[in-house]
């Protein structure tokens, strides 16, 4: 029995977070900024460290003296939890440090509430990963939802934000009930809700499938899987940027964790068609997300849709893993699973970085609308550089991290042939194609995102006043950017750390084969089948660049003139004539027209005040949600009729009820 275990450290930092949050209620403004958020970041660092340690260590469990009488809170720290805790901690460090600078000019009342909710949010997410019984899991889960709801509605005097918050909490709650039911199926019936007993419970294939689908629905609601995604593009932009970063980067992953936990850990065995369902849903989600991201004109909405896309990709990975595991191709399952987890980790860093970046832009310019931004690379060069890293990473370009996970996933696809199901073999190449399409579109989106915000000329006067980020923001962003780069350059190490998780879930690992030719070269199965070495690639390019630079410097006189850009002989070029965000999305809108509900009002040539308005609406809203709302309306109208106001009618109800019951027992 060693003196201190990872679980102790984790528990300590979770308690620390809660204490900090409560402290925020009483601390003065300066103290919140100067002490509490840094301390929170430190705790996050501790979490990351402990999780890293736990990835190597054997699983631990603990029982708290809290909870229901038969059911004290059970904690369980296995490698799966550890991996996601690592994700949580590592990302949070950057975000918390960033927040120190970001919230600097917020008034005390708001700030202290925000501090409370922020740290409880963190603690709740950590507990979600640690929970080992249904009750604690649900408590943590809903606390997470609740605190994030309050974070989203931080400036609640804006009606849209209130609406967004409500939508979010509603979807979250319905999802939570579904999760609850899924646990209800798995519990033995003797009121024992620990995960341990759920693992032992043997379900018939029907009930197992019900459980899986309930889990997919419940967690999908949190993850933003089609068609439960509607809250996401509303809520994420509404929140303050660090919060958006946490929700997109970390909270969505809790749903991934939940699906993995239920599918692989709690339900011992899978059925192959579950995988197909997940795969299809994932692809639809990914394509949908990236398509809508391409046509957004609000930078945070754009990022939110891109989150939907990435969740879709992750779900695809899960689907593959399930399929393979169901067919007992554990090596392939391990590959797909590793790709999935890797992508989850990457997305946490990339999306965190980007959302924080947009936060800084918002802070500096007060503008979220892409149509007003532009040219910030001159005003905010440091930010521009850091965000560039994030954009390239999320566009899935080598040698950064986004590419590695997509590469692994594609490998999993390519190695799939030879599944017993023939039409699965048909489906999978098409799926691969769709996935690649999504990834390529992500590139389009990111060029739009970065180009419109940072490049070109400012589209609005007030942008000129923008100031670059302060030191805290820079540290936070740099942390995340470094994460993106390192995760991209040293995949073998990452995979070696993911291995214990794969071992736990599918009983097979990648590391042995992945590292067989040394840490430099990533070879998932065999060197001659596939190999990729981002570091080498990076070095070659670097060498190439420097060589070229050197050569040019050597042989070239290096004279340089500055002048105005070429105006094509048209003298009065203004910044307004640049391509707008909407214009940039136009080709996509045209190609995938039938997926968008497009509303446009175009001015006639004779308008005195020509005004153009265009928006692309989410078809699913009209196709799914409005009908549900209307149905509820009509039903409640019908029910409302019963409350008729006439006492005779009421008496008649009682009378009829009585007679009916009497007749019934007769």
């Amino acid at each position, binding site marked *: 029995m060693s003196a201190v275990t990872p679980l102790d450290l984790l528990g300590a930092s979770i308690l620390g977070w809660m204490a900090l949050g409560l402290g925020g209620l009483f601390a003065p403004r300066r103290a919140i900024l100067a002490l509490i958020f840094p301390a929170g970041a430190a705790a996050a660092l501790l979490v990351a460290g402990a999780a890293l340690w736990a990835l190597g260590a054997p699983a631990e469990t603990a029982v708290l003296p809290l909870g229901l009488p038969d059911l004290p809170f059970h904690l369980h720290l296995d490698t799966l939890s550890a991996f996601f805790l690592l994700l949580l901690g590592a990302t949070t460090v950057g975000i918390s440090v960033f927040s120190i600078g970001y919230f600097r000019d917020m008034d005390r009342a708001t700030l202290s509430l925000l501090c409370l909710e922020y740290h409880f949010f963190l603690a709740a997410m950590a507990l979600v990963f640690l929970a080992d019984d249904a009750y604690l899991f649900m*408590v943590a889960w809903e606390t997470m939802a609740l605190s994030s709801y309050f974070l989203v509605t931080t400036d609640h005097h804006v009606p849209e934000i*209130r609406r967004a918050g409500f939508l979010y909490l509603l979807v979250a709650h319905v999802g939570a009930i579904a999760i609850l039911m899924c646990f209800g199926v798995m519990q033995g019936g003797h009121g024992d809700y620990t995960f341990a007993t759920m693992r032992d419970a043997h379900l018939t294939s029907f009930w197992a499938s019900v459980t899986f689908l309930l889990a997919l629905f419940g967690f999908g609601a949190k993850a933003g899987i089609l068609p439960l995604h509607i809250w996401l593009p509303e809520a994420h932009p509404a929140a303050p940027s660090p919060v958006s970063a946490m929700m997109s980067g970390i909270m969505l992953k809790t749903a991934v964790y939940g699906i993995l936990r239920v599918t692989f850990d709690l339900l011992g065995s899978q059925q192959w068609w579950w995988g197909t369902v997940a795969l299809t849903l994932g692809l639809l989600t990914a394509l949908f997300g990236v398509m809508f991201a391409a046509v957004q004109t609000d930078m945070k909405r754009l990022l939110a849709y891109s989150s939907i896309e990435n969740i879709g990709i992750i779900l695809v990975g899960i689907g593959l893993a399930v399929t393979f595991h169901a067919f007992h191709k554990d090596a392939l399952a391990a590959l797909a699973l590793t790709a999935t987890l890797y992508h989850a980790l990457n997305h946490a860093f990339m999306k965190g970085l980007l959302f924080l970046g947009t936060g800084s832009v918002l802070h500096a310019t007060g503008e979220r609308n892409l149509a007003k931004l532009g040219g910030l690379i001159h005003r905010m060069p440091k930010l521009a550089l850091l965000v560039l890293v994030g954009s390239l990473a999320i566009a899935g370009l080598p040698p950064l991290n986004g590419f590695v996970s997509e590469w692994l996933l594609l490998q999993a696809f390519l190695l799939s042939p030879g599944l017993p199901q023939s039409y699965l073999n048909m489906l999978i190449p098409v799926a691969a194609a769709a996935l690649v399409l999504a990834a390529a579109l992500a590139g389009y989106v990111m060029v739009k995102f970065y180009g419109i915000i940072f490049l070109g000329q400012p589209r609005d006067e007030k942008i000129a006043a923008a100031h670059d980020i302060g030191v805290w923001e820079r540290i936070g962003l740099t942390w995340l950017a470094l994460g993106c780069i390192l995760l991209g350059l040293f995949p073998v190490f990452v995979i070696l750390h993911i291995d214990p998780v794969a071992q736990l879930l599918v009983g097979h690992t990648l590391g042995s084969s992945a590292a067989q030719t040394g840490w430099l070269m990533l070879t998932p199965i065999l060197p001659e089948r596939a190999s990729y070495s981002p570091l080498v690639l990076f070095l070659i390019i670097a060498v190439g660049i420097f060589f070229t630079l050197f050569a040019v410097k050597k042989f070239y006189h290096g004279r340089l003139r500055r002048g105005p850009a070429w105006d094509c002989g048209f003298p009065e070029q203004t910044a307004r004539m640049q391509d707008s965000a909407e214009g940039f999305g136009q080709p996509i809108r045209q190609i995938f027209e039938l997926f968008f509900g497009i509303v446009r009002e175009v001015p006639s040539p004779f308008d005195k005040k020509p005004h153009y308005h265009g928006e692309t609406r989410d078809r699913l809203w009209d196709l799914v949600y409005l009908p549900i709302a209307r149905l509820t309306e009509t039903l409640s109208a019908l029910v409302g009729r019963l409350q008729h106001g006439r006492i005779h009618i009421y008496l008649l109800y009682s009378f009829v009820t009585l007679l009916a019951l009497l007749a019934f027992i007769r």
Partner: protein
Amino acid sequence: MEILWTLAIPLIGGLLLALFGGRRFAPELNSAMSLGTFVAAAALTVRVITDGPITALNEQFFVDSFNVFLVALTALVGLTTSLFSRPYMRIEQHHGKLSVNMLRLYHSMYQLFTFTMLLALLTNNLGIMWVAMEAATLTTVLLVSLYRTPASLEAAWKYFILCGVGIAQALFGTILVYFAAEKLLGAGGNALLWTHLDSVKAHLEPTVLSLAFVFLLVGYGTKVGLAPLHNWLPDAHAEGPTPVSAVLSGLLLNVALYAVMRSKVLVDGALGSHFAGDLMMGFGLLSVVMAAFFLSRQKDVKRMFAYSSIEHMGLMTFAFGMGGPVATFAGMLHMTVHSLTKSAIFFAVGHATQKAGTQLMENIRGLIKTSPTIGWGLVIGSLAILGMPPFGVFASEFMIITTAMHTYPWTTPFLLTALGVAFAAIFSRVQTMVFGETVGQRLPHPPALVPVFVHLGLVLLLGLYIPPYLAVWYRQAAALIG
């Protein structure tokens, strides 16, 4: 002995306040009396938990862990409500809604109402229980019609007639039970004593008992507010003074459900089938679903929370109907947390409506801005009642839903729909009330929010940690009512 005190103090209080109820110190006297009641009840509780069930006055009174827990709850909520009603009623008087006589009536009836409920809980005699329930109806009728407005009169009238008729059915049921029992226990008093009935329940005539249960269920069910017998409930809650709404929701419904449970025990014993349970599950489910859809049309805040009470009573009935240790435990936990939460909500709502000068929700805005305590009280209370962890309501709903999912899966889609709809309905409205820009004037007296946060604190505690003795207590009770 404690029993006598528990009953005597509110009775005396009622008589005293009938005399001095209009004086300036009357609210304090009222609170003092409730405090006395609470102390006596606490003593009684301690004794029962330590010594087990007791009977008194040659078995006319009987206390086991099931009803003592309701006694304690009743006394507690009675106390906090009286504390809340001090400033509330003063403000009402200040707004000129109440005359001195009305105030006197209010205070006296408040105590008598407490008395009748405690009597209904403590008595061992099903007949007396019926009498007490009827008396509780009468007292609350006066309380509901306190303001003498057309609306309140109409509400009170409906309340009186519907519950009177319902209760009459319950009496018929009681007669039938007696009719079945006297063959075994002989005519005279004993045949209605629950302890004796319980001892011979296995031999009671099944057909009679099933008939009796129908009448009892319809009778007491009317007071529980089970759909479609619930129609009096929203009116009474919305039109009466807020403290009364609080005790109606928090206590009266529980007591009625208690009566149903007592009869269920007998019937189960006699029939040995799940007949009673099935009926209760049916009614419960119907109430939950109907209430949810009613909820999404509400404009009046108190009315809305009244419907939410219907929903939750339905949930409890459903849980008790399912039976089994977990579900019954959950049902009783839900009784506790619902009373606490709902009364807390009504406290907050009371002051909110006084601030806004209306009960219409679209005219209540930005509470968090004007008075953060009321606002947060309302938000947290609503989230708790909507079954958000880490509050106790979630704990019970957790057990209910999981058990239902395992035992009666077909019911869960209804529950899912109902809970979802109810959430959307309530939360969307609460959100607009507490957030956003503000309206509303200052209150002439400082609002009493200690009760709110005491209740919510307890509910939070029950969500995270149920003290062992409480658990033991619940389990004993659950074992008693199967």
